[in-house]
């Protein structure tokens, strides 16, 4: 497998990210990068359930929020950050396991609506139980240092990408993709659909919680229910599709595109930014289901020898008119 060049480029990017974190004095750059990394991690986590296993969840923010909530409460309450994050991920994993049992019996649209209903219910409940803003203590604010949050976010992203990579090339991952492509057929070939969906669900939720932890550690001040907001789910989905669903690099690319794009567009026309992304999203879904990844691939393919194949390892258009 041609891992060489790709690995080198990945290493370069990683080195750059580390460098930026250590060297940059720009609050703006650091904030943007952290936000990108958190969103990329969240998007990647959704991708595992939606892209690999083909289950479109609209309640993903519930896990992001839960991870953020547990981390924030424990950490601000005096627990060490590492322990807080581990607890957050563990609790979320368990919650996902419990919730997944009834949820994953739903298929397709029912699953989407069901997870949406769950997500909204959790959002409302969180807002009721934790109505007050959570802000870092004054001392920490005055001495705020980006380094910690930056590298936590980076580690979270790396962990998520690593797990995604591993999954993609593992038997479990293959099982998930089989389920995605045709759940009935998967059952017929001996793949336990429910088990695979559950594994995807729990991993996806746990990684979302991990991203939430990074968010909680980085944020200065926010209302706890914000992390449960359906907007996070939507942003993750938007980013995954624009980047290229089912790929490893898609969510990352999409996140960079989204955050940087949003920042570079002039702020006077905030609404038009949203309109643009919305339109882009629609275009992607209709015309370019593989997202930017697919677009880039086509570009690259055109510059290559014509007999080089683009294999079906990337899960685009495997089943006729299937867009995912």
């Amino acid at each position, binding site marked *: 497998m041609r891992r060489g060049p790709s690995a080198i480029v990945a290493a370069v990017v990683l080195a750059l990210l580390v460098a930026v974190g250590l060297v940059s004095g720009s609050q703006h750059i650091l904030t943007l990068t952290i936000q990108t990394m958190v969103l990329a991690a969240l998007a990647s986590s959704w991708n595992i359930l939606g892209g690999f296993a083909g289950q*479109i969840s609209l309640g993903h923010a519930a896990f992001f929020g839960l991870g953020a909530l547990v981390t924030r409460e424990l950490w601000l309450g005096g627990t060490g950050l590492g322990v807080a994050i581990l607890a957050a991920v563990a609790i979320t994993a368990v919650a996902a396991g419990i919730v997944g049992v*009834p949820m994953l*019996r*739903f298929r*397709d*649209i*029912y699953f*989407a*609506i*069901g997870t*949406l*209903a*769950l997500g*909204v*219910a959790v959002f*409302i*409940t969180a807002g*009721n139980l934790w109505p007050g803003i959570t802000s870092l203590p004054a001392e920490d604010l005055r001495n705020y240092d980006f380094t910690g949050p930056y590298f936590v976010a980076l580690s979270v992203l790396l962990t998520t990408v690593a797990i995604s990579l591993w999954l993609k090339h593992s038997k479990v991952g293959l099982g998930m993709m089989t389920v995605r492509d045709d759940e009935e057929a998967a059952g017929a070939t001996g793949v336990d659909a429910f088990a695979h969906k559950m594994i995807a669900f729990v991993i996806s939720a746990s990684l979302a919680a991990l991203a939430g932890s990074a968010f909680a550690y980085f944020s200065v001040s926010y209302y706890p229910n914000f992390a449960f907001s*359906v907007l996070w789910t*939507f942003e993750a*989905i*938007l980013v995954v*599709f624009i980047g290229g669903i089912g790929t490893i690099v898609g969510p990352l690319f999409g996140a960079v595109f989204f955050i940087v794009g949003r920042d570079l567009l002039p702020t006077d026309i905030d*609404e*038009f*930014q*949203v*309109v643009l*992304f*919305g*339109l*882009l*999203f*629609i275009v992607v*879904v*209709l015309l370019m289901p593989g997202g930017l990844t697919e677009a880039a691939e086509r570009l690259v393919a055109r510059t290559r020898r014509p007999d080089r194949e683009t294999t079906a390892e990337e899960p685009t258009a495997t089943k*006729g*008119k*299937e*867009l*995912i």
Partner: protein
Amino acid sequence: MTQLILQSVVSGILVGGIYGLVALGLALAFGVLKVLNVAHGELLMLGGYASFFAFTYWGIDPFVSMPLVFVAMFGFGVLLYLVLFRFVTRTEIHTRIKNSLLISFGLVLVLQALAVRFFTADERTISTSYSLEAFTIGPVRVPVVRLAGLVVAVVAALALEWLLSRTRFGRALRATSEDWTRAALTGVDVRRVYLIAFALSAALAAIAGSLVSLGYSISPSIGLGWTLKALIVVVLAGLGSMRGIIVAGIFLGLVESLASVWLGGQYREVVALVLFLVILSFRPQGFFGRAHA
């Protein structure tokens, strides 16, 4: 306490009528086109704004402007179909649902942002001279506006039922929703059916919006909340079924209202959502739908 319960029951039924009306359009789009339009709430919002502006700038009473809003948003629905949803209907059913979900989500972003841009994010409401009038039946007050809303919902549902069962177009609609390939083979112009069904669903959402701007308030961000309500009602009634939508809507309204009495207003929506999930788990075909094969 009895008065509270009775009043809550009445309130629940009245708001349930609107839930039903909103769901009606969504059910139509889904039943016929097999398209899930999560921007349905945004269409409601636009209809609400149309009524609001007609009232504020031209002094037209919202019930009077309702037919106009209906027609206007029917046109908008036609436009949306031609520009967007038409492409979705080219794929087979399974992908259609997924793609329409995604596309309409993009549409949500677009419509909401445009609404903020042109209408500002401020809350609006219509207050007419009769806004506070209410009938008193025993210990219970029945606000005129909300009752009228229920009436509109029932009338719309009956009209739709009449359309579906008594007209030729209605037959074409039903045939298409059951099996579009077969319908096409028997000479039904499927594209035209799709177009009209979709535009109708938009128009229905719009008049629900008029009621919302009269009885509650509207702002660019209300769309998703109403879409979720509509989704729940549609699923409760039975995905793909046009029957019993109003009933399911009223059921939802009642659940919320009564939950509010016992658990406090903070959890009324949560209770409804959880109950929805429970019902979905045990009876995915809803109250009136057929069990899936």
